[in-house]
């Protein structure tokens, strides 16, 4: 079937250029997504009565600051742990195993299981089997280690994919040359493989960090009172305290810091390429 009878007059035809379509998408996103978020930030400002940034004074109090810093801290720890584990896994898949597709598939499958299910599964894992087998849950559940471990388990595939791609892309000949020149496996990893896979490592780090620090479910399901993260706090402020101003302020502070960090990163690594790794 050839669609022929769409006689779009030339002037219209030329007006609706691809550029316009892109603009359309940007505008829609801007109006219906960016604007609401910006509005949220604006809501945190108290216009009229005295100090505009009044709520920020509350928001930047010790308790809240701790939560924000905790979130970034958990994010950082999770990132480091995930990177190490993901690197080991990817290395194995790329260089040692001959069932690449299968092993990679096993990494990708959990990615498509909803977070809520994976975190609950993690919880059950410790309440059930681990407790039964080892007698104790090692104090992991409802503690910092629980949250970090849970985050790692859930975000691991995000770390593996970019690293896997980077490692896979390394030309065998570089490695062979290194071995021929006398380097051991370990040295080759350190001097050749690691540097050449750096882009993947950075990409993985950024993705995991963003997702981990902003995580809601990890702390909610696996954490105790001491593990409240910024996402939980914002939610609490909104749903339980009905304090929209506080919630917005916290959201604004967190997002600003995050975007600032990302901007710095964007200077070194194009964020786009990072996300296209997915």
């Amino acid at each position, binding site marked *: 079937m050839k669609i022929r009878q769409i006689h779009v007059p030339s002037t219209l035809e030329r007006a609706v250029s691809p550029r316009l379509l892109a603009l359309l998408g940007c505008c829609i996103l801007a109006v219906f997504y960016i604007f*609401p978020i910006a509005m949220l930030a604006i809501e945190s400002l108290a216009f009229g009565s005295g100090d505009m940034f009044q709520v920020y004074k509350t928001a930047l109090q010790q308790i809240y600051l701790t939560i924000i810093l905790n979130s970034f801290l958990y994010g950082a720890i999770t990132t480091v742990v995930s990177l190490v584990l993901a690197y080991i896994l990817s290395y194995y898949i790329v260089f040692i195993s001959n069932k690449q597709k299968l092993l990679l598939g096993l990494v990708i499958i959990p990615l498509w299981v*909803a977070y809520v*299910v994976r975190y609950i599964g993690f919880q059950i894992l410790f309440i059930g089997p681990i407790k039964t087998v080892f007698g104790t849950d090692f104090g992991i559940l409802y503690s910092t280690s629980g949250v970090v471990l849970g985050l*790692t388990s859930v975000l691991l595939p995000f770390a593996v994919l970019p690293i896997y791609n980077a490692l896979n892309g390394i030309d065998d000949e570089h490695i062979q040359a290194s071995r021929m020149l006398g380097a051991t496996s370990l040295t080759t990893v350190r001097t050749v493989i690691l540097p050449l896979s750096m882009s993947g490592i950075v990409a993985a780090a950024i993705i995991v960090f963003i997702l981990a620090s902003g995580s809601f479910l990890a702390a909610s399901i696996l954490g105790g009172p001491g593990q409240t993260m910024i996402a939980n706090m914002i*939610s609490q402020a909104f749903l339980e305290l009905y304090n929209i101003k506080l919630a917005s302020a916290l959201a604004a502070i967190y997002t600003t810091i995050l975007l600032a960090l990302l901007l710095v990163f964007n200077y070194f690594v194009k964020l786009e390429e990072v996300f296209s790794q997915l």
Partner: protein
Amino acid sequence: MSITNRIQSLGLRLSTLVVYTLLLAPVVVIVLTSFPVSEFPRIPQQGISLRWYAAILENNDLIAALQTSFFVATVASIGSGILGSVTAYGFVRGEFPYKESLSTFMLLPLMISPVITGIALIRFSTDILNMQNGLSRMVFAHVFLTFPYVFLLVRAELVTFDERVEQASRVLGANGTETIANVTIPLIFPSILSSMIISFVVSFGEFTATQFLVTFDSVTVPVIIYTMRREGLTPEISALSTVLILVMLAGVVVSQKIE
């Protein structure tokens, strides 16, 4: 192989095994605990029973949640499918300044914590857009939450798309719209479809933003799983979770087949 090599190799294999366990155990556990005979999820189990899956079918709330999730995911994926494809086309074929930065801009929904998105959109849709229906608000929010996935996937497809086929069509006498309809869309359609299915899957499993958007009569599966948890972990939760897993995995498999 020397001793050090052997130890290294063994160490690597062991570590890999540990990592896989960490990764897959939660999912495996959920599935396994949906079959027990008794009330509590426990491993090892005393027996296998499907009663918990049957229980789902008798629980109206759960059925309603499944329906809501399906509805929202379907409509949202159609919406983000269209929006994402059109925008991706514009970005790949169009020339304008700051294209790079704007591209990253399109991915913001992925970077901003879903909690913030959820709160922002519930307020916006209620107060400004005056959307009364909980269902429509959820669809609205999910369109934007899944938009980046379509954008990325369709854009990737268009980038590797040989423009010359479009040029040939133009020279043969077709105008821009005719070319898109007769040549471009048929050729990228599999990608669009598969990215829409990915959107479906993402929407189906979304919790963090959705929790702010649910209402009395429109709850989604992830949210209901979460709230059920409050009352204790039951095999029913595991069963429902397993259903969720199956739906999402089925979607991914179909999406891959289309490619």
